C-alpha cells in the first residue's frame, strides 16, 4: 500500500514539553484502529520554529497546519481529516480574515512563514532527525561526496570564501578565511570543532538545528575536516540539551554505519572521526579558547589571543571552531554554489540569519530571514507585533553582549555592520522585544546580572568591574542613585570594554551603554525624580488610594503585611513604610481606586 499522507509532529524541545511525544503515540493508536496505519505515516520532526503555537502538527500533502494541538484533538483529526478528508477547522492556524482563507492553499502562505527564507533550517520540521535516509533524500551528504571526490581542499575553501559566509555565532568572521589560516598551518594533526555551547538567554537556534537536522552538522564538519586537513572533529555541546545530544549521537552512529564517517570516506584516502564533548553550560565556554580548555579537561577559561586557534588550538594543534548555524549553511553552499549564496543578503553580509524571537511579541519562535530584512518586517510582519495593543519600545539583539535599539531604528536593514554601527550586534541571534511596560534600566540590570554570574574570574576588569557596575545599577533601581552614579557607570563600562581579556568582558557593558545612549531620560527619572516610568522597579513605586475609594475594606483584608488602615465606608490609607509593593490591593479593589505612581 502506498503512503498517501504524512503527519508531521514537531519534536523540538518546546513542543516535546507540551506533550508532543504522547500526541505521536496517540496518532499511531488511532490510525491503527481506523486501519489507516499503512497508508498514513506519522513522523516526529525537528522544530518548525513557530513555538508560540505549539504543539504543531502538519498534514501533507494538504499542507494543513494544526496549532496548539492537545491529546484530545488527535481522535478528531484522525476521524475527520485523515479518514473522511474534512479538515478539522477548530485547530487550524489562521492569521487572516475569513474571506481570504479560501485563497490560501497551504500553511507556507501564512504571515509567519511567507517572508522567511530557510537555508540553515531547511530540513528542520521537514525530516525525521533519526533517519539518515530522509536526510539523504534531501540531497544530504552529496556536498561531502562532491568535495572529497571532485574537489581539492583549497577549492572547497575558495568556494566558501567566494560565498561570503560569515560566522553565525556572533563575531561574524569570514568562514573561508578562518579555514584558510588552518589550512596554511602545517601540522601532524589538526582539529575541527563545532561550537554548540549556545548560552545567550533566549537564543535556541543551535539547539533546533542539532535536534532537527543533526546530519547537516556532521556533513559540514567532515567537509571542514577535508578542507583544512583534520581527521578528528569534536562537537562541544552543553549537557543541558539532552535531546540534542541524544539525536546527535544517534546521527553520528548512523553516519559510521553508512561509511560517511570513519576510514576511506567515498572510497578515498580521507578519514574523519567525530565525537561529542559535553560542557557544563558555562557561558564563557562559548569563547573559543575557553571552549578548547574545557575540551582538554581544564577549567573553562579564555587565554590571550594571538596565537589564534587556527595556529595553536586544541592540544596546541591548528584548530577551526565554527558555530552550529555556520556549519548548517556549508553543505548547501557547496551544492548550489557560491554564486547562488552571494545573491542572498546585503553587500557585506551574505545569506540568511536565524533569529529567536522572544519577549513581548505575538509569534514567539525561530525565524530565518535574508540579511537586509528590516527590524520592522521581522517584528511586525513575521512576529505579528506586540500583544495587548501595547506600544513597541525597544528590541534587544545579541543577548548579554548586544544592545537595545529603539523605534527610530526599526527600518534598519539587519546585517552585521549595521547592527554594530548602532551599538548593538548580531550575536548568536537572540531578539528580545520590549514594550512600554519594560524598564530599560531594569533590562540592563538583568543582562549584567547574567554576565556577573557567568564571568569566569580570570581577568580583573570583568570579574570586579561588572560586579561594581551591577551594584551601581542596583543602587539606581532602588532609588538611591545619583547623577554621579550614572557618570561612574559609563566610565566603568568603557574601561571594562577596553581592558577585558575575552569577548565576554569586552561586550558585557553593551546593554548598559546602549540603554544609556538611547534611554538616558529613564536613568535620569530613576535618580532625579526617583520614579520608574515603566512601573517596574519596585522600590520606586508608590501605591496610593484615591478618593474613588468606597471603603469596602477588600484591600485591607487582602494585604499580606497589614499596612492598609481605614474605617468602613471611609477612604483607606496605605502605610508607605510598611508596604512591600506587591500589588495585591490593586487587584482586589473593585472600583480601581488604587493607583501606582
Amino acid at each position: 500500500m502506498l503512503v498517501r499522507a504524512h503527519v508531521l509532529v514537531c519534536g523540538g524541545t518546546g513542543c516535546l514539553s507540551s506533550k508532543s511525544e504522547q500526541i505521536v503515540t496517540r496518532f499511531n493508536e488511532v490510525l491503527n484502529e481506523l486501519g489507516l496505519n499503512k497508508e498514513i505515516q506519522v513522523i516526529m520532526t525537528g522544530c518548525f520554529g513557530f513555538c508560540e503555537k505549539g504543539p504543531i502538527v502538519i498534514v501533507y500533502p494538504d499542507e494543513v497546519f494544526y496549532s496548539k494541538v492537545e491529546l484530545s484533538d488527535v481522535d478528531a483529526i484522525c476521524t475527520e481529516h485523515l479518514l473522511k478528508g474534512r479538515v478539522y477547522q477548530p485547530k487550524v492556524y489562521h492569521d487572516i480574515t475569513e474571506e481570504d482563507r479560501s485563497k490560501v492553499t497551504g500553511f507556507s502562505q501564512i504571515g509567519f512563514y511567507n517572508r522567511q527564507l530557510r537555508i540553515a533550517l531547511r530540513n528542520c520540521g521537514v525530516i525525521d532527525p533519526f533517519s539518515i535516509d530522509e536526510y539523504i533524500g534531501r540531497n544530504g551528504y552529496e556536498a561531502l561526496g562532491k568535495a572529497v571526490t571532485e574537489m581539492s581542499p583549497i577549492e572547497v575553501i575558495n568556494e566558501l570564501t567566494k560565498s561570503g559566509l560569515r560566522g553565525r555565532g556572533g563575531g561574524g568572521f569570514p568562514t573561508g578565511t578562518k579555514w584558510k589560516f588552518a589550512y596554511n598551518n602545517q601540522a601532524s594533526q589538526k582539529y575541527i570543532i563545532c561550537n554548540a555551547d549556545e548560552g545567550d538567554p533566549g537564543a535556541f537556534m543551535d539547539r533546533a538545528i542539532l535536534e532537527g537536522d543533526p546530519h547537516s552538522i556532521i556533513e559540514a564538519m567532515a567537509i571542514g575536516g577535508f578542507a583544512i586537513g583534520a581527521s578528528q572533529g569534536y562537537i562541544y555541546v552543553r549537557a543541558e540539551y539532552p535531546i540534542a545530544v541524544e539525536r546527535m549521537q544517534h546521527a553520528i552512529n548512523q553516519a559510521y554505519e553508512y561509511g560517511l564517517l570513519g576510514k576511506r570516506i567515498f572510497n578515498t584516502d580521507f578519514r574523519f572521526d567525530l565525537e561529542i564533548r559535553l560542557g557544563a553550560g558555562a557561558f564563557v565556554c562559548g569563547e573559543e579558547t575557553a571552549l578548547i580548555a574545557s575540551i582538554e579537561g581544564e577549567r573553562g577559561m579564555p587565554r590571550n589571543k594571538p596565537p589564534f586557534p587556527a595556529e595553536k588550538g586544541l592540544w596546541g594543534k591548528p584548530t577551526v571552531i565554527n558555530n552550529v548555524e555556520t556549519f548548517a549553511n556549508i553543505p548547501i553552499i557547496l551544492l548550489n554554489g557560491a554564486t547562488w549564496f552571494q545573491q542572498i543578503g546585503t553587500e557585506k553580509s551574505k545569506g540568511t540569519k536565524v533569529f529567536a524571537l522572544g519577549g513581548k511579541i505575538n509569534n514567539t519562535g525561530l525565524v530565518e530571514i535574508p540579511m537586509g530584512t528590516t527590524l520592522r518586517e521581522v517584528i511586525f510582519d513575521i512576529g505579528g507585533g506586540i500583544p495587548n495593543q501595547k506600544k513597541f519600545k525597544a528590541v534587544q539583539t545579541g543577548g548579554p553582549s548586544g544592545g537595545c535599539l529603539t523605534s527610530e531604528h526599526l527600518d534598519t536593514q539587519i546585517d552585521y555592520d549595521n547592527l554594530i554601527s548602532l551599538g548593538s550586534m548580531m550575536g548568536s541571534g537572540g531578539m528580545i522585544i520590549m514594550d512600554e511596560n519594560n524598564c530599560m534600566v531594569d533590562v540592563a540590570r538583568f543582562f549584567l546580572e547574567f554576565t556577573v554570574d557567568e564571568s569566569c574570574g580570570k581577568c580583573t576588569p570583568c570579574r570586579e568591574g561588572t560586579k561594581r557596575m551591577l551594584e551601581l545599577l542596583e543602587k539606581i533601581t532602588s532609588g538611591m542613585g545619583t547623577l554621579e552614579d550614572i557618570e561612574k557607570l559609563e566610565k566603568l563600562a568603557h574601561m571594562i570594554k577596553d581592558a577585558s581579556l575575552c569577548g565576554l568582558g569586552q561586550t558585557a557593558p553593551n546593554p548598559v551603554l546602549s540603554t544609556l545612549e538611547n534611554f538616558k531620560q529613564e536613568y535620569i527619572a530613576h535618580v532625579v525624580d526617583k520614579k520608574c516610568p515603566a512601573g517596574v522597579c519596585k522600590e520606586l513605586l508608590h501605591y496610593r488610594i484615591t478618593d474613588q475609594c468606597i471603603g469596602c475594606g477588600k484591600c485591607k483584608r487582602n494585604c499580606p503585611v497589614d499596612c492598609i488602615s481605614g474605617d468602613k465606608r471611609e477612604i483607606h490609607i496605605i502605610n508607605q513604610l510598611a508596604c512591600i509593593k506587591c500589588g495585591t490591593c490593586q487587584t482586589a479593589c473593585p472600583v480601581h481606586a488604587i493607583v501606582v505612581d
Partner: protein
Amino acid sequence: MKTLEDLKKMRDEMSKKISLRENKNGLRVVVGMATCGITAGARPILTTILEEVSKNNLTDVTVSQVGCIGECALEPIVEVYDAEGKRTTYAKVTKDVARKIVQSHIMNHEVVMSNLIQSFK
C-alpha cells in the same frame, strides 16, 4: 555507501518517499470520501489513483481526499483541479476509469469524456 553514485541512487529513492512534503504546483486530484463516497467504493478508487500516480513517477501531483460534494447518487466522485483552480468532475468512477483519469487526463491533458458528471444528468 562507497561511491557518490550509490549515494545519488539512494537519494532518488528516498526523495520520492518524502516528496509528499514539498510544495507542489501541478494538478490536484481529490476523491470524495464522505459516508456516501466510502459506501459507493471510493477507497479502492483512491488506492488505484495513488498506485497509478506513483507507478508513473508523477511527483508534482497531489492526491487527497475530501468530504461530500452533494451529489451522493453519483459517487464515487473524483475531481481534478488544475494549477489555476479550474476543476473537472468525474462521477461513478470505477477502477478502470480511475486509471484512465491518471493516464489520459493527468499525463496527457485529455479529459475522460465518458465519466464527466455532466453525462449523468
